[in-house]
């Protein structure tokens, strides 16, 4: 059973070991080159400045070829080293220079020399970074909310956007030369007396600069490979010469076979992550657009194992990419995840099964490399072949949290309801983890804007608009809990307060977007998303065909559980008075009576057990969010894209841990500082009736309106999937959730508690132990102790 997926070739094995044994470093090359380009091009339009920056970096950064690789292209001076992107934010980098090596999780090494380099460029960036400008632009009320952290959008002003899949299909087919030709033609015909044309002309010129830079970058590898071939032993020399030829052709020309397509894809995917440090840059429907090249190569005699080796090689390459975030932000995205999603399976536009031979090889190869990158999503649909389902469950049994399932049955209609055409809706792919977009046509951040802390919002609502933790007034008060005579008053307070904070969240997001548009537009990325070139607008100006974005919430389950406990214990059964409950919450259930009160609250119905009493309150509480968020427009509204609005999504990534740390005790019986529930999963250890009940509870949410993703994690221990017939029952469970209950997403974490505890004690023995933190996989041993404990504490579903 263990060998169902087979073994990696020795060279891939070696490459993998090297990557796993690498301690990530901080790389300053991009920072230095970017500073140089910015200094030299201060006078230029921002799009040109950005293009010259990309050119400076691609033409001067270190390039190298790993001895084991057949696909070339590196992000930084060493694999897994994280570049610094100074134009986004520098304050935290300088502040944390001496802390990178001391971190509890996501540690990075940095040399004294590099620290000095960063200190030297810092003065130039003061007041010039995205963060400086965005913070200065925030209206006063939004600033308070940002400072307190009830809404988090630090990630939006300290790094780039990404959260999209570009039009890889066209790049592979026609090459960048086709883009260059098109842009040149447009540029030649522009009448500069028209304001819009003049503005667009800089964008077009920027595209030409960037494409030339990509050409030089590929050429550098072509030359390097040829040079290294001179010194290599014959077998490797032949490989390097082949690599050299491929790099001389792609990504400028169209690919003709599988190796060319793989190299072309990697160049683009890599350069987009050099251009900007946004994460969740996703591959889209890899098994669909790669198929013609796969078929051509198989026809020409390329063997199955060669195809697999190349696929495994690409997955290892995705792991070479790294990102360093501020410590504050790291806690929201533990495990330095890049969320490079790859989506396979699903249906074709005419409703047929899209699973092909390459789909299966992607599954096999990822089953061999077993790494947290890429993040694999399988699109489920009712007609999914049971053999393929069985293979997916075989992978789940390997215990590294993949694949995640996203269901066509709900996602396609949800997208159509948002205004996406049928053909595009059928072609959706996962972006990052659970969220979805249309590859090559959808702007940044289909989800991934700011996070709203639901339970904290409830506590502010019950405390006349004042945050208990900081004592600061957050918004207009609607009274105190101790004066609320009926449960309806509690609901009304939640409704009013949540709406005020959602409103503030939109202000923060739109302000961040406005400044990103002005300061850090991405040129290559925009050139590869339809219809930026046609409109002469980069993505943040409204270049994409679709542009709808979603914010995220943390602690959906805690909100519902808290409402249920208040309703039952205070207003219906009168087990507690308002005063004594409030007193217990303020004092974090201190003393004997405090613990008694907590036990009473814990006995109230909890979300995740298929109990309508509480599930309906979760839905009702969430309805406020759904109703309010759809009133708002993003900064691209009316500028071209379909949509230009907001919608809901529940992917909270790892934000549940730090957000919980800053949240006082809550009426669901949760102590102050304890983690909140993640995504739409039940609160920790509160789902005591098994997976079917969890599915039932989750399915009561208005999933079709939460098109940004309804994230559900389930954990199982490996021994329970040892029998084939049990695996079949898991398949039935998942199928029922999707076909009948219209679930959106589910992923399984198959690890035993014992394994995790042992891994905490002996991290050196578990270097490749991967867990789902929430919507993505991470190495367990690099997570902070707190996050590790959180994972261990989650209920193990008895399968």
């Amino acid at each position, binding site marked *: 059973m263990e060998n169902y997926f087979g073994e990696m070739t020795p060279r891939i094995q070696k490459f993998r070991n090297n990557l796993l044994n690498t301690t990530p470093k901080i790389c300053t090359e991009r920072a230095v080159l970017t500073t140089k380009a910015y200094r030299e091009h201060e006078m230029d339009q921002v799009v040109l400045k950005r293009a010259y920056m990309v050119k400076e970096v691609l033409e001067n950064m270190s390039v190298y070829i790993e001895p084991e690789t057949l696909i070339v292209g590196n992000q930084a001076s060493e694999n897994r080293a994280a570049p610094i992107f100074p134009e986004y934010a520098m304050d935290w980098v300088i502040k944390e220079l001496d802390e990178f090596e001391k971190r509890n999780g996501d540690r990075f090494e940095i040399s004294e020399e590099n620290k000095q380099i960063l200190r030297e460029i810092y003065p130039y960036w003061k007041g010039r970074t995205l963060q400086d400008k965005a913070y200065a632009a925030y209206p006063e009320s939004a600033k308070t909310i940002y400072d307190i952290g009830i809404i988090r959008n630090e990630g939006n002003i300290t790094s780039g956007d990404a959260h999209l899949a570009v039009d890889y299909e066209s790049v592979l087919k026609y090459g960048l030369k086709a883009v260059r030709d098109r842009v040149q033609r447009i540029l030649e015909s522009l009448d500069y007396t028209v304001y819009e044309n003049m503005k667009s002309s800089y964008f077009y010129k920027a595209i030409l600069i960037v494409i030339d830079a990509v050409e030089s970058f590929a050429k550098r590898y072509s030359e390097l490979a040829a040079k290294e071939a001179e010194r290599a032993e014959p077998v490797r020399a032949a490989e390097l010469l082949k690599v050299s030829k491929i790099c001389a052709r792609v990504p400028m020309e169209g690919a003709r076979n599988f190796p060319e397509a793989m190299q072309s894809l990697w160049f683009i995917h890599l350069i987009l992550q050099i251009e900007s440090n946004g994460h969740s840059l996703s591959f889209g429907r890899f098994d669909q657009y790669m198929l013609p090249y796969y078929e051509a190569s198989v026809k020409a005699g390329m063997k199955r194992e060669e195809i697999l080796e190349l696929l495994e090689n690409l997955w290892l390459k995705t792991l070479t990419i790294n990102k360093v975030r501020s410590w504050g932000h790291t806690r929201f995205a533990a495990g330095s995840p890049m969320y490079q999603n790859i989506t396979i399976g699903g249906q074709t536009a005419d409703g047929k099964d899209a699973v092909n031979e390459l789909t299966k090889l992607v599954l096999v190869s990822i089953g061999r490399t077993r790494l947290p990158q890429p993040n694999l999503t399988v699109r489920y649909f009712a007609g999914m072949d049971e053999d393929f389902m069985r293979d997916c469950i075989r992978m789940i049994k390997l215990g590294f949290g993949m694949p995640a399932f996203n269901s066509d049955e709900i996602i396609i209609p949800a997208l159509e309801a948002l205004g996406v055409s049928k053909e595009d809706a059928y072609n959706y792919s996962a972006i990052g983890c659970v969220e979805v977009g249309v590859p090559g046509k959808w702007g940044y951040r289909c989800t991934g804007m700011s996070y709203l802390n639901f339970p904290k919002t409830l506590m502010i609502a019950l405390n006349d608009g004042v945050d208990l933790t900081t004592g600061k007034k957050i918004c207009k008060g609607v009274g105190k809990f101790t004066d609320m005579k009926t449960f309806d008053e509690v609901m009304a307070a939640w409704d009013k307060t949540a709406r005020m904070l959602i409103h503030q969240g939109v202000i923060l997001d739109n302000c961040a977007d406005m400044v990103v548009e002005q300061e850090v537009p991405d040129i290559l990325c925009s050139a590869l998303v339809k219809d930026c070139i046609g409109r002469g607008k980069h993505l943040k100006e409204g270049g994409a065909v679709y542009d709808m974005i979603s914010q995220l919430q943390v602690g959906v389950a805690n909100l519902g559980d808290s409402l249920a406990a208040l309703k039952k214990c205070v207003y219906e059964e009168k087990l507690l008075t308002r005063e004594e409950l409030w007193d217990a919450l303020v004092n974090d259930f201190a003393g004997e009576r405090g613990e008694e009160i907590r036990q009473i609250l814990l006995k109230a119905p909890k979300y995740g057990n298929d109990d309508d009493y509480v599930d309906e309150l979760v839905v009702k509480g969430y309805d406020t969010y759904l109703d309010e968020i759809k009133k708002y427009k993003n900064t691209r509204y009316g500028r071209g894209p379909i949509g230009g609005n907001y919608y809901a999504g529940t992917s909270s990534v790892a934000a549940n841990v730090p957000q919980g740390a800053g949240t006082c005790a809550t009426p669901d019986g949760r102590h102050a500082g304890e983690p909140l529930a993640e995504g739409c999963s039940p609160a920790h250890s509160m789902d005591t009736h098994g997976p*079917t009940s969890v599915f039932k509870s989750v399915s009561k949410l208005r999933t079709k309106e939460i098109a940004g993703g309804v994230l559900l994690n389930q954990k199982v221990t490996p021994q329970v999937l040892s029998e084939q017939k049990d695996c079949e*029952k898991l398949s039935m469970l998942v199928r029922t959730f999707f076909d009948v209950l219209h679930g959106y997403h589910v992923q399984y974490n198959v690890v035993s508690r014992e394994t995790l505890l042992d891994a905490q004690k002996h991290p050196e023995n578990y270097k490749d132990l991967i867990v789902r933190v929430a919507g993505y996989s991470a190495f367990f041993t690099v997570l902070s102790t707190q996050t590790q404990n959180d994972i261990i504490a989650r209920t193990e579903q008895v399968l």
Partner: protein
Amino acid sequence: MQKGYIFNIQKFCLHDGAGIRTDVFFSGCNLRCRWCANPESQLPCGDERSEAKCYTTEEVLREVLKDEVFYKKSGGGVTLTGGEVFMQYEFAMELCQKMHANGLNIAIETAGAVDPEKFSALVNQLDFVFIDCKHYDTQKHRQGTGIGNELILKNISWLVQSGKAYTVRIPVIPGYNDSLSDAKAFAELFVKLGVKEVQLLPFHQFGEKKYEKLNKKYDYKGVAQLHKEDLKEYKELFCASKISAAIGG
């Protein structure tokens, strides 16, 4: 409407019948198996030490119907177990009628030491029967469980003739019925009764902690669990008698 005592309604059970099932655990038992993994089920209905709750048949029905969508897709349903379901016969009867009216597939797990008339009447309402046979020898049966096996064998005999789908289960207990000569004797008895389907349940220790909680003496404390591989030869002796045997649920 009948009321009854239920000590657990457990969703997503995979090992007590076809598909995804909900197990309904009835309180009260007329056996006192020394190895019992559910000692709380031996407490009489309404005993204050018991955590069992009193339900109407309607309430149980409502609870089991919550997972109806999962039964449908997987060919599953509800399994009545315990304790001994027949200890609350009228309640069980009314519940089965209601579940049948809702199209649910119903299985039962019973020790079978019950009045044959009641046995046949309830079984007629069911889709599948798991009936235990803990020992082939009535003296030994009495030693291990507190009562002889006469009624059980009578009910098995009727069941086999009735045409109802069934499986006879043997909990294989170390030092009690786990020798190969025990297996042979079981097989001879089953041939005589016409039993065709047997499941062997290896002894496990999942209930050990419950005895501590109930402050009850446990004769099998610390006894090693049996595993699938321990029962290989044991199982083959059934196959040799043309009885289909499987290990585990």
